């Protein structure tokens, strides 16, 4: 124990010296590894090793009770010829697209809430954040009642203005739209909190200067707020896209497993679930999981590449 504390002290001393930190870290030997071991062990055992296994299983066929046979790329050949993959991908992209519309809305609401001297600001913040904290299943149950075609409040309100509302959750097309509306609504709070934190970091002097220069509130929003908020927007964008690609629980709970529309409104993860856990075709499901993994990876790498063009990191 004494050794380790002295080590730490000496590391600190070295870090403050002009020597490069890398050399110091190298000299520390196995000590840093010892401290990250609990986390590293857990991650390796429960995340990294299963990925390797899943990658292997995606080349096999599974019996219901285990026992796999190696089938080469057969799962992938079948998967890329499966029209359900493309329909699931299309549905997921549609959902992601609609949910992303929430980001501009969140930017706007966050900046409204950031107005100096706004009364009840914390109350509004809680109000917008609540949907994010609620269990998706509970959220889905409430929205299911709202969306009900015959007795739902949404169609009742629409009927007051003379619109004959559709059967939201049981018409192909509308069902995905309904899920996306709820997805947007419940992700708004999270995006908003991140963006509000970003707004706090914008120096008030910039607004004062802009105001002295005669900038209108809208001009201040587009020329000061938005550019300085881009790092937060970028973070929210990545998180939203990744979580949209993982759409499952909301879809499952909002539409219900017996809904005839479900096979036509499948998301990628639902497709994975139905193959792996309903049809017990786990080798095939592993292949689907690998495809989802790769897609999310590519999209994320792409975003990091493109961020240099528009994210202001100064």
């Amino acid at each position, binding site marked *: 124990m004494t050794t380790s504390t002295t080590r730490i002290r000496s590391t600190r001393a070295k870090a403050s010296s002009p020597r490069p930190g890398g050399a110091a870290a190298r000299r520390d030997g196995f000590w840093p590894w010892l401290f990250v071991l609990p986390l590293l062990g857990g991650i390796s055992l429960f995340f990294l090793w299963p990925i390797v296994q899943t990658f292997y299983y995606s080349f096999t066929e599974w019996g219901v009770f285990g026992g796999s046979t190696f089938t080469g790329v057969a799962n992938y050949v079948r998967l890329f010829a499966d029209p359900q993959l493309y329909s699931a991908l299309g549905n997921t992209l549609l959902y992601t697209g609609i949910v992303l519309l929430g980001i501009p809305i969140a930017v706007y609401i966050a900046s409204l809430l950031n107005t100096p001297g706004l009364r009840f600001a914390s109350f509004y913040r809680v109000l917008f954040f609540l949907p994010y904290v609620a269990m998706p299943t509970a959220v889905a149950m409430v929205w299911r009642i709202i969306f009900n*075609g015959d007795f739902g409040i949404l169609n009742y309100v629409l009927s007051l203005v003379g619109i004959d509302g559709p059967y939201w959750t*049981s018409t192909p097309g509308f069902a995905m739209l309904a899920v996306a509306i709820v997805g947007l609504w419940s992700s708004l709070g999270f995006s908003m909190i991140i963006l509000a934190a970003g707004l706090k970091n914008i120096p008030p002097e910039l607004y004062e200067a802009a105001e002295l220069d005669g900038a209108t509130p809208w001009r201040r929003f587009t020329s000061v707020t938005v550019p300085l908020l881009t790092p937060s927007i970028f973070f929210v964008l990545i998180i939203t896209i990744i979580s949209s690609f993982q759409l499952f629980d909301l879809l499952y*709970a909002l539409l219900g497993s017996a809904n005839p529309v479900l096979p036509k409104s499948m998301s990628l993860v639902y497709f994975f679930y139905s193959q792996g856990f309903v049809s017990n075709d786990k080798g095939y499901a*592993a292949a689907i999981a690998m495809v989802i993994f790769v897609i999310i990876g590519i999209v994320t790498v792409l975003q990091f590449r493109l961020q240099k063009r528009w994210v202001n990191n100064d």
Partner: protein
Amino acid sequence: MKNTFPRTSIVRRTALGLASAVGIVALVAGCSSSTGSAPSGDYSAADKDLTAEITYGLWDQTQVDAVNANIEEFNKEYPNIDVNVNVTPWDSYWPKLQTQATSNTLPDLFWMNGPNFQTYGGAGKIEPITGEVEADAIDPANYPEALNDLYTIDGVQYGVPKDYDTIGLWYNSEIFERAGVAVPTDDWTWEDFDAAASAISDSLSSEGIYGAAGGMDGQTSYYNTIFQAGGEVISDDGTESGYDSAETEAGLQFWTDLIEGGGSPSIQQLSDTPAIQWFTSGKLGMLWSGSWSRTAVAESEFADVINVAALPHGEEQATVIHGVSNVVAASSKNKQAAQALQVFLASKAAQQQQGDLGAIIPAYTGTQQAFVDSAPNVNLQVFVDATEYAKPYPVSGNTAEWNAFETELLPDAFSGSVPVDEAATSLAEKMNGVLAKK
């Protein structure tokens, strides 16, 4: 208790980014492989002083009191066998059982249902009851034949029926009275049913009341009409789909016609609001549903005017029967004790006790009176009489896989957007693809 349908299971909101993308990948690898031990089917009666600790796995919390009463009686006979009742909610019962079966750690005795049975029986995960039958400890003749068939593969029976449910025609007599239509009788034909459904819809549509509802799931609707039309869902040996036969198509057409004629809400209306809710809210004249609906009906504000009749006849009289059975795990370390409990639970006394305390219809012939008497104003006897003409719930080795195709393809046939014969043919094709895989 409706025991054959997948209930909603919930996967909680994933926390952050890539970590959970990784999690999805990790999910598949969660179960790993191992080989099972072969079941023998041997049985020898346990000594009364046999000492053992066994687990009894089940999914319905509401039946635990009755099960505990059973076990108390069992312990009078075998005082040294300690039984742990292990309740797993329906949502996680099957995934958990699958994992347990994979690692050969199944409960010694557990509940089995029709759609899942062949998966376990076929893989040698459960013990046949051959030895118990040969030793006269269990006599299958005491249970409805269709239920014995449900738990039999290649002439070998694996499960002892515990309870059952059949389907009847529930109706709201107040709605019939207001529409001026005579209430259903046990000799109704399809034509009588159709005429009554349309008449009710016609005269009460201004109040949003429909005559009947149908076509959403197999067990309560189209399986029954398929059997009534003389068709089959799956061939007796479970190797071929029955959906491409003319009789089966007639059974499907029944529901398409009902919806088209206005006798039922549309498929969309029924997916937004399930038929049972239409019925218990007084918006539906008739409902095809199981004996398990007794509870929902009793809680409805229309309970006083609701009664039940036998399903209408098509070419023949038929209903689907399904029931839970008790099975012994092939991997059990205390097989003798588990079999002793299985034999005890199969007895008339144990099942009578289940019927008196539980919410179910016990399977042992002659123990059903308590169920029939539970609602004196409702003719619950029809559910018991139905065992005489009931057909087993259609299953095969991978039932869930072709069930998914039924849910995918049939609603379009019922709503009229795809011709029935076209939907039935493509369903048969896909289902045969699944059945051929075995």
